[in-house]
């Protein structure tokens, strides 16, 4: 277990089978809960986190001290109301905030590092389902997720159709596109090009591949924002200077901002976890899991057995997982006869809009999850 995490940890009572055919022994999942589980366990809401998120959904992060990543959405009287619902958020396997991942120790006493098996979104969800079993929750009132969290929600709905009554998927996709994979590959190559990465075996070393991880984060961060948002926030303004310096310092405000985002990220995230989780996202293609011969051909088959209600939300400026991806899922759900809602919301901030204050999103989430 990571010393960084203060969360309760669920030790799986059995080895976790993985899509690769391998099994994960001694798997642990760190999680946080908010609110009280009803006696019939019928009020549980599982919130799934995004690529670099963690279980600190609505409570302060132990490393950064910042508020939980979705405190504006989850809490007493909030759209996901912890006075009514028992809200669970767990660190996915492969991550680095207390759940088993490349940084945690293998049975031989050394960190797994690159010996950690390559995992998939479905493997993450398999871990979450084991946690739900451990908590005595047979059927979730709702599963909710944005971005990679939305992929988990879709995977749960498709693979364990009885486990959730409502499925809320925000700013997400049923498959990673070539462009999505391409951006992730830039990030992975940045990490692996850092000499300190040392084939992933850096845990005992003094230097970590922080430079590579920071560049990966910088590249990814651009994909989370919109051009208009960047222009509005930074324009071509210079940072702490009146004129160009004819050098390569972070002269533009946007450069300074990205460097800050990159270096801040390395304090709380493990480079190998970044490799594993981006790989899992790249492998994600829900239609392919259900035997479709070509992409999107029969995504409807993934939802054939579902009795859940679905809600999909996209943002008009999100070019990472654009509205067309959500619409593609909606069409498949329509074809499967599922009960589905879908709305494209307007927001200036690109993919990250789902994490920011948005009155309409609040109302949609509240109306759907209630």
């Amino acid at each position, binding site marked *: 277990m990571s010393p960084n995490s203060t969360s309760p940890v669920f030790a799986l009572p059995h080895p976790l089978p993985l899509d690769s055919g391998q099994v994960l022994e001694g798997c642990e999942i760190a999680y946080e809960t908010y609110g009280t589980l009803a006696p019939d366990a019928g009020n549980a809401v599982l919130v799934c986190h995004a690529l670099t998120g963690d279980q600190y959904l609505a409570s302060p992060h132990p490393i950064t001290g910042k508020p939980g990543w979705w405190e504006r959405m989850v809490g007493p009287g909030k759209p996901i109301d912890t006075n009514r619902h028992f809200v669970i958020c767990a660190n996915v396997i492969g991550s680095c905030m207390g759940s088993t991942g490349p940084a945690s120790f293998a049975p031989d006493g050394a960190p797994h590092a690159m010996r950690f098996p390559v995992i998939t979104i479905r493997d993450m969800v398999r871990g979450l389902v084991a946690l739900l079993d451990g908590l005595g929750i047979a059927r979730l009132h709702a599963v909710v997720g944005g971005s990679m969290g939305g992929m988990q929600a879709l995977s749960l709905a498709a693979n364990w159709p009885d486990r959730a009554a409502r499925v809320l998927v925000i700013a997400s996709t049923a498959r990673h596109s070539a462009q999505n994979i391409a951006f992730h590959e830039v990030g992975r190559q940045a990490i692996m090009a850092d000499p300190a990465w040392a084939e992933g075996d850096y845990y005992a070393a003094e230097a970590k591949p922080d430079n590579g991880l920071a560049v990966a984060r910088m590249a990814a961060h651009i994909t989370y924002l919109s051009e208009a948002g960047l222009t509005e926030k930074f324009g071509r303004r210079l940072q702490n200077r009146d004129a160009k310096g004819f050098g390569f310092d972070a002269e533009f405000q946007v450069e300074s901002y990205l460097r800050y985002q990159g270096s801040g990220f390395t304090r709380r995230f493990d480079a190998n976890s970044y490799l594993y989780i981006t790989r899992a996202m790249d492998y994600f293609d829900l239609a392919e899991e259900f035997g479709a011969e070509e992409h999107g051909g029969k995504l409807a088959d993934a939802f054939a057995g579902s009795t859940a*209600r679905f*809600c999909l939300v996209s943002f008009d400026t999100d070019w990472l997982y654009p509205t067309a991806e959500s*619409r593609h899922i*909606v*069409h*498949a759900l*329509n*074809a499967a*006869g599922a*009960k*589905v*809602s*879908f*709305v*494209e*919301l*307007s927001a200036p901030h690109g993919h990250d809009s789902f994490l920011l204050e948005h009155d*309409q999103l609040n*109302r*949609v989430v*509240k*109306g*759907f999850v*209630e």
Partner: protein
Amino acid sequence: MSLRPDLAAIAAHVAPGSRVLDIGCGDGALMAELESASGCDARGMELDGALVERCVSRGLSVVQGDANLDLANYPDKAFDYAILSQTLQTATRPDLILDELLRVGRRAFVSFPNFAHWRTRAALMFGGRMPVTRALPVSWYETQNIHHVTVEDFRDLARMKGAAIERAWFFANEIEIGAPAANWRAEFAVFELSR
């Protein structure tokens, strides 16, 4: 909450417990009525995102979509009823929409403002300009009604499509009127079709 007269007529004639698709569902008033009063499984489609958000916020299953494009994904006869209220005249191709309605629904309800109502005729005949009336309150250059239709036009279209008119209701001054001379007297019409 009182429904618009054409919606009330539809609500009164949807069999309880039916599966219903309301195309152009607006703020979801009809869907809410069908779910609460008739125990229907109601789904909606609406183009306007703000209206969709209101529907979803009140717990209705509504998809933001364009009836001209997004009906194609629903399987044949997925619904007992497909409802198109006051939307036909805004469609790019009303004839193709009608085909889709009769494909996804076992029955269809279609309501529309009747362009042959005497007030519209009089406005055109004596005013010489595109009518702006109680039933059609928006000027020609900004109206969403791009395919004006009359009661008789619709009967012709239904016949051409091989659709049987099961029932029809006509309204003037928000009150139901009889079928005689409906093409003159009705401001709004509702048809129930099957094929």
